[in-house]
């Protein structure tokens, strides 16, 4: 579908509505993400206890021992676990706390509706992306074709409908890869034809390349064993899948009911079975680190220098990056999404969970290009051996930001959230994740590609040579 039949003004009207819708959806996705995170926390709480010997005689939720005659527990009709009287919700028709919370999340996220629908009409592939999202992308690119970087990989903008989907869907992903390649090459052509614009475009081309470089590396990592990683494409895992996973791992454990909790416990002990690491890459919810604390930020846009100025103030109440040694060396990293461009970092603060940074990080970008962008602010612990541990993130939509409003330029505290999408893996960020690095020098050689690894990249390399 396209809007070409409409006049320009009509098109603008419709796109404006779609933008508002998108803002609403971003907020909604965030809300759902929080809810699921809380649910996960609740599930985990039972497993957190040090009592390693689970048995029939403890409550599956709080692990408190059950008596023989009084408070002997009863079986939850939802999960068939023995539950003590404290961990029940409701009277006669009670459920255990987790079963109750699970149902609540299903209701509150609207997932019930999607599930019901999926039962009747099995979800088909590309339908995940909303029409509105597609239109927004298409027309946003068209209107700024000379400056806007290629369409981002789809994992960032999936509508929450995608939650009801199955995991095997990588079709939209590869599709967008093609689009990406096309727009990438068209970018290069654009540059070669308009030498005058080269300076102005330098930045955005840079963005574009980074975006593509990022996807290449993701694609490379999509080996057969890593097939689970395709779920990065989806923002939030569907509840059934989420629990199915834990159930699968249950079968490996021995029989008694409460055993399932240990599979989560194993993540704490550093992953005693191989699958736990893949679980943790699948979604931020499974990360071993409990996300806590807040981050202080101020955002301003400097029109004279065309810079987005992000002042990272401080953090408070962070979790320990190294829980065993109770150590934390936090730093803050910024990206502009969806391209993951403009990587910026603060200095690392040693031995503190309340670091004060007071650093101004600048990102040069034309004001109108902020449309559709989000600022991803992540907090990391810089551990030994270059291990980085994720401590939390804040996502801020930039297109609706009222930079003119003085109040919005002041410092604000943002609660840290678990990761929404983690392209480089969940728990620990690997160094050298960026396969391709680009450098630009001032001789007009815009695209000098180094350390290329993919065939496609080699092709682009050739194109670049020809242009020169």
């Amino acid at each position, binding site marked *: *579908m396209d809007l070409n*039949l*409409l006049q320009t003004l*009509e098109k603008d*009207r*419709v796109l404006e*509505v779609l*933008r*508002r*819708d998108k*803002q*609403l959806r*971003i*907020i909604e996705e965030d809300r759902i993400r929080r809810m699921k995170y809380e*649910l996960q926390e609740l599930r985990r709480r039972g497993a957190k206890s040090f009592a390693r010997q689970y048995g029939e005689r403890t409550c599956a939720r709080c692990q408190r021992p059950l008596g023989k005659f009084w408070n002997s527990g009863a079986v*939850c*009709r*939802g*999960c*068939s*676990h023995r539950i003590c009287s404290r961990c029940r919700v409701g009277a006669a028709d009670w*459920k*255990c706390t*987790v*079963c109750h919370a*699970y*149902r609540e999340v*299903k*209701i*509150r996220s*609207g997932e*019930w*509706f999607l*599930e*019901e*629908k999926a039962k*009747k*009409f*099995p979800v*088909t592939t590309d*339908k995940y992306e*909303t*029409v*509105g999202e597609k239109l927004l992308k298409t027309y946003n690119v068209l209107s700024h074709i000379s400056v806007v970087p290629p369409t981002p990989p789809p994992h960032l903008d999936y509508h929450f*409908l995608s939650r009801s989907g*199955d995991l095997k869907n990588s079709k939209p992903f590869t599709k967008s890869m093609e689009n990406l390649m096309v727009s990438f090459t068209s970018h290069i052509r654009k540059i070669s034809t308009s030498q005058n614009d080269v300076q102005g475009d330098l930045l955005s081309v840079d963005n574009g390349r980074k975006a593509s470089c990022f996807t290449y590396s993701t694609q490379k990592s999509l080996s057969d064993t890593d097939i689970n990683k395709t779920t990065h494409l989806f923002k939030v895992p569907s509840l*059934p899948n989420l*629990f*199915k996973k834990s*159930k699968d791992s249950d079968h490996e454990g021995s029989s008694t009911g409460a055993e*399932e909790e240990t599979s989560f416990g194993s993540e704490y002990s550093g992953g005693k079975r191989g699958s736990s690491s893949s679980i943790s890459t699948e979604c931020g919810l499974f990360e071993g680190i409990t996300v806590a604390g807040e981050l202080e930020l101020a955002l301003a846009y400097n029109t004279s220098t065309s810079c987005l100025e992000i002042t990272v103030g401080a953090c408070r109440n962070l979790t320990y990056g190294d829980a065993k040694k109770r150590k934390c060396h936090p730093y803050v990293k910024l990206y502009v999404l969806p391209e993951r461009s403009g990587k910026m970092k603060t200095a690392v603060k040693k031995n503190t969970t309340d670091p004060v940074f007071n650093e101004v990080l600048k990102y040069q970008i034309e004001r109108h290009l902020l449309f559709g962008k989000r600022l991803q602010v992540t907090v990391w612990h810089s551990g030994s051996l270059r291990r980085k541990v994720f401590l939390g993130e804040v996502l*801020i*939509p930039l*297109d*609706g*930001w009222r930079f003119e*409003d003085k*109040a919005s330029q002041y410092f*604000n505290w*943002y609660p840290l959230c678990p990761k929404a999408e983690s392209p480089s893996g969940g728990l620990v960020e690997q160094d050298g994740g960026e396969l391709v690095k680009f450098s630009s020098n001032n001789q007009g050689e815009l695209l000098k590609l180094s350390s290329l690894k993919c065939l496609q990249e080699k092709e682009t390399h050739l194109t670049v040579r020809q242009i020169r």
Partner: protein
Amino acid sequence: LLHLHPQMASATATYGQKESSDQNFDYMFKILIIGNSSVGKTSFLFRYADDSFTPAFVSTVGIDFKVKTIYRNDKRIKLQIWDTAGQERYRTITTAYYRGAMGFILMYDITNEESFNACPGLVRDWSTQIKTYSWDNAQVLLVGNKCDMEDERVVSGDRGRQLSEHLGFEFFEASAKDNINVKQTFERLVDIICEKMSESLDAGDPAVTGAKQGPQLTEQPAPPHQDCAC
């Protein structure tokens, strides 16, 4: 109650002072208003969301929506109400938005025979479009608007009721101008969505149905206790 003016929506949507209040609701429902051109869909929405009415006719361009948070059954429910253009030329855009809608208001004008006659056609035409999406699962109300214009009425209440029975929807006559049955329509729709919600949850709930479980199998075989957290 919280209502977002279009201009305000983007500002509210960003992080800021209003951020907390913005997420301060229990459910979010998407509702679509459909019907022929000039039956009063936009007026109906404006009456409900803003409590305002303008007699002038302004054709809706493509789609639009308003957000209204209501308090119903002890829950705060955020409604995203989509107003669609009735004109044929926007059909591709409007139908694309059927997906994800949990409730529909199918509207005609009681002073306009054609708009009434169009209803079954709309249902038929659109249901093919919707089938793949959500019509089958969504709740629908049939609404005869402009019931304040009794002198010019051409579609009797009985005919409206008959049609609604035929289509299997509930029926209201309403007036955006005189504010008759507007709130009631939306509230009824919210209620039946809520009913549907608990119905669908309990159906899949082993606690209620016992061991018997009846969702059709999709590509992925469902584990025995799919709906349980444990």
